[in-house]
């Protein structure tokens, strides 16, 4: 890998610029994309950087094409990625489904915008359900919900590795706020942190000549018999579940003695973090729990936080109308903790929104 960043350095950049740099240092070969706000600048930076490092780009005719060209590129052995949002994320569920079915290690950066429909171009956390369980499949994906530019940078590097190591599609779930705002970021070459980048390899167009005896690679995603499909889905599910413990990531603070645990993900977790500090300073025993991976979900860790704290309430705060809540409820089914909610679909949440809600329910 070329020394792209040089010595590790602080930058003051947008999340979209962060994403482009992260893909570059992670060794991404190709980006296929289609314009949609708020992810556009990922393409803008990538198209400026890519030719200098021998990387490729194609602006496709739509998100279906962007997703399927990524699938083809990955099949041919290249680290390929795309970025999208909102209605584009809806269209890309079709190629993401093919990636799930054929175990194609693609990486997609989702910068959530308001919904439903065209919604807003600004911000939301309303693509949680779509990104975790979209498509006509079983959600065999890895979804990282980032909260900061450092997260975007770190988890894109990690995401490419997880994709190529385990061959599950990986999603970096950001949002319009993270996409557009500037904040400090520490950029680095992965190698300088001892991170070894997993090498991509082809699934078709592989080594060896068929004419000299190599078996042809026939990749498929459709089956004649119910039982054939069943065997494949069950095998993939078993592999996914066996990996869950090694993939799951979360952050937890002040849960040991908490009366109320505030559960949030992504950029909202920053407000939750501040809210907990302020509440603690006021003598209110609040705890903080943030799933970093939404798929797989840190359900054991959340159950443990609830158990050890003895908290009576779990407050779920999200910029959506209950998408994180539904996901959480199914993951911790059977817990008797009272669940309160702060739903602000498509708008931001600040510390005082959470503090006021906590005080109203305690």
């Amino acid at each position: 890998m070329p020394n792209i960043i040089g010595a590790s350095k602080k930058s003051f950049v947008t999340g979209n610029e962060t994403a482009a740099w992260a893909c570059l240092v992670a060794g991404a070969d190709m980006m296929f994309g289609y314009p949609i706000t708020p992810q556009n600048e990922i393409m803008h930076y990538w198209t400026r950087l890519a030719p200098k490092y021998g990387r490729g780009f194609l602006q496709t005719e739509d998100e279906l094409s962007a997703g399927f060209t990524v699938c083809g590129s990955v099949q041919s052995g290249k680290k390929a990625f795309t970025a999208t949002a909102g209605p584009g994320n809806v269209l890309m569920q079709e190629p993401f489904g093919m990636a799930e079915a054929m175990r194609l290690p693609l990486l997609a950066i989702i910068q959530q915008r308001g919904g439903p429909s065209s919604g807003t171009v600004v911000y939301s956390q309303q693509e949680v359900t779509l990104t975790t369980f979209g498509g006509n499949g079983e959600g065999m994906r890895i979804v990282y919900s980032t909260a900061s530019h450092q997260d975007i940078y770190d988890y894109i590097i990690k995401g490419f590795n997880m994709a190529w190591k385990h061959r599950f599609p990986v999603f970096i779930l950001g949002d319009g706020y993270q996409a557009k705002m500037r904040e400090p970021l520490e950029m680095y070459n992965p190698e300088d942190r001892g991170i070894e980048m997993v090498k991509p390899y082809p699934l078709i167009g592989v080594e060896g000549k068929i004419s000299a005896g190599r078996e042809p690679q026939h990749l498929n995603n459709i089956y004649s018999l119910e039982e054939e499909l069943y065997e494949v889905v069950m095998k993939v599910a078993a592999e996914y579940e066996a990996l869950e413990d090694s993939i799951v990531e979360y952050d937890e603070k002040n849960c040991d003695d908490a009366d109320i645990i505030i559960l949030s993900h992504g950029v909202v977790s920053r407000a939750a973090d501040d809210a907990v500090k302020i509440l603690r300073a006021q003598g209110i025993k609040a705890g903080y729990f943030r799933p970093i991976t939404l798929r797989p979900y840190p359900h054991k860790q959340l159950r443990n936080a609830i158990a050890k704290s003895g908290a009576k309430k779990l407050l779920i705060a999200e910029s959506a109308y209950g998408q994180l809540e539904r996901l959480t409820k199914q993951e911790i089914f059977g817990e008797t903790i009272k669940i309160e909610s702060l739903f602000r679909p498509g708008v931001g949440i600040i510390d005082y929104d959470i503090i006021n809600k906590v005080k109203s329910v305690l």
Partner: protein
Amino acid sequence: MNAPAVLKVPKSWYLPSKPHKFCPGCGHGIVLKALGEVIDELDIQDQTIFGCDIGCSLLAWDFFACDSTQTHHGRTTPVMVGIKRSRPELVCIGYMGDGGGYSIGSQHLVNAAVRNEKITLILVNNTNYGMTGGQMAPTTLPGQKTETSPYGRDPETTGYPTMGPEFLSELTPDSAYIARASVSKYKQLKKYLKSALRNQMEGNGFSFVEVLSTCPTNWRTNAGQTWNFVEDEMEKYFPVKEFKNPLGKGDK
């Protein structure tokens, strides 16, 4: 004494998947035989990537001893574009029906042509959706009866048949290869397929062959009627010829 006749099949065919699963009288077998012979003659078995659309064309997914991939309905074109853009040394062949190419995947076809993507697309036109049970397709002829045009296709309400090579010729630069062949004219079909692959191999540009084909199962025709429909009805409506050939006259 003559030796007993031996069935001669192209080297690039994948024998474990034979006999193939197309209906008796289906034209796909003819197209795939011609394609197999062309792959052999061009000696590109080892660098060919064969991509299959959903529909009857899917039954060809393991037809060749070449690396191949299934895609989704209409999405073979972008998958092939993604592979070719990533690995230009590979020869990428997208194989689809008229529904996949001209209806659900038409935006990909149009834009791949406009970008002059260096891939070869083979679109088999049998004037209906065969796999799903014989519905009206973009290529169904005026008056032709299908499951979703049981009284015959009415152009007033459903438009006229899509003329693929005609509009693709308008969209592409001179370096593209565009042709329409027919399973009733085997030598010409082979020649067109060969030119479409050579055009990709020489790095010229987009290469496209529509092949007029048969569907006796859904047409509900016997052998004579099937052949008559291709030669008399279809070839009259859809001109069989090269529309664009940057290679000049090509092989005789």
